[in-house]
């Protein structure tokens, strides 16, 4: 099967994006824990990787102008195919190959009706909750360092 030919229906696009983003944001421990609770481990044939490479991270001149190359980041990616033929992809910053391989399997499982709920409840929802909690905590810690200016009352008039 030509991996590049695989297309995604529009309706699933937002869901697939969210799934890929949350898997990228998950830790290996979170992904392993979900994998361990999976009753029947699917057979997954490696199609590509896991392999580590680089992504050139781009910025924009002045913040919003033309793109420029800021520097590279390590990225690890994997593609797997389930016995059913469903292909899963994963890619995340860092060099963790186990995380990429298991994430690709979860990406494939998410696409199958029968296992989507499992992926949602075992991995995506907990990761989403953790990320939101971390973000909220950081925002509150930063907010506590906000300067509240006040004007001293002047002596004359």
């Amino acid at each position, binding site marked *: 099967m030509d991996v590049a030919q695989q297309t995604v229906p529009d309706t699933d696009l937002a869901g697939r994006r969210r799934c890929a983003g949350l898997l990228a944001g998950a830790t290996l421990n979170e992904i392993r824990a979900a994998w361990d609770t999976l009753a029947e481990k699917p057979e997954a044939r490696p199609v590509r990787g896991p392999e580590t490479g680089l992504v*050139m991270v781009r910025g924009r*001149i002045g913040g919003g102008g033309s793109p420029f190359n800021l*520097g590279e980041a390590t990225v690890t990616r994997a593609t797997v195919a389930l016995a059913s033929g469903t292909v899963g*992809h994963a890619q995340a910053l860092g060099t963790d190959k186990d995380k990429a391989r298991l994430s690709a399997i979860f990406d494939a499982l998410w696409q199958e009706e029968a296992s989507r709920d499992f992926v949602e409840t075992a991995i995506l929802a907990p990761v989403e909750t953790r990320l939101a909690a971390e973000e909220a905590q950081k925002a509150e810690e930063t907010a506590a360092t906000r300067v509240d*200016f006040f004007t001293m009352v002047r002596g004359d008039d």
Partner: protein
Amino acid sequence: MYVAVKGGEAAITNAHRLLADRRRGDRSLPSVTIDQIAEQLGLAVDRVMAEASLYDRSLAALAVRQSRGDLIEAIFLLRAYRTTLPRFGSSVPLDTADMQVERRVSATYKDLPGGQLLGPTFDYTHRLLDPSLLSDEAVEEPARREAGEEAIMRVSDILAHEGLIEADGDLPQDQPAGDLTREPLEFPMSRDLRLQALARGDEGFLLALGYSTQRGYGRNHPFVGEVRIGEVEVEMDIPELGFAVSLGRIRVTECQMVNQFKGSSKAPPQFTRGYGLVFGQNERKAMSMSLVDRALRAEELGEDITAPAQDEEFVISHSDNVQATGFVEHLKLPHYVDFQAELAMVRKMRADIEAARNGENEMKDAAE
């Protein structure tokens, strides 16, 4: 002429063994872990990532450990590692307006949307050594306060409403961003390539150049419009999927320098801008970068080029500390044959001068 000389293998092996020993240090002390370096020496790790031009906290921490804390050596290690990896592609350009801000200050507006957020800063500390850090005393949890919903607006957007500030920099249409890791440097270069070079440039070198502009060598009247530090999403288009997905988040520091400009034959009086963007938390580097970026725009803005910081070829050719250390440090490698040749030449010159002098004296004697 090169002459093959053998020898030194045993000395080199033993030197590296000794290096490993000194790196480990006193065995009665626990060994420092990669996680400890990444967590507790995080700003050293950030500097290594920025100047190696490779974002990976664990590998940068490993490099810091391996180099015994010699950060330029660590940068060199990470740069070398980078060359072993294939490139998968380029990210979607970062959206720094959408950053999860951890610090944001402006020197140009007191009350601005989002406010002045000091974050984890060294500013306002008294720079007194803290004896409590001699031991491992418990550290308080950070204070918390409800976060506002208000967007943390860019300062450049606030000024843009009045039309008194130039826009974000745009390259000519269809000009793809240059990449100095793929093409040799050529001067003059466009601003995108300069920013790439400055983003990986040596912090000390850029700091000194930025400082030189403040002291009058290419003065450019800067104000910090804004410095912001925080995490941004890195997204990449995945051809197999046909859309962009998030790869995770990285921390960056951005500086928008706003420079008063009295106008020239090429541009009216307005505020011009210098831009700095750096991997990790490093506002000294981001600020220096934006000062130097602005200085290097002298020609574009029709200013006289009078100072080192405005000289593109000088600045960009000498900003890379891996190149610089390679060339400076190679001087200590064997130059035995070169030196023998020089020695022979100096001896000959000396002998020639003495012979000439003796000849003159003999002539004088004969004349007398």
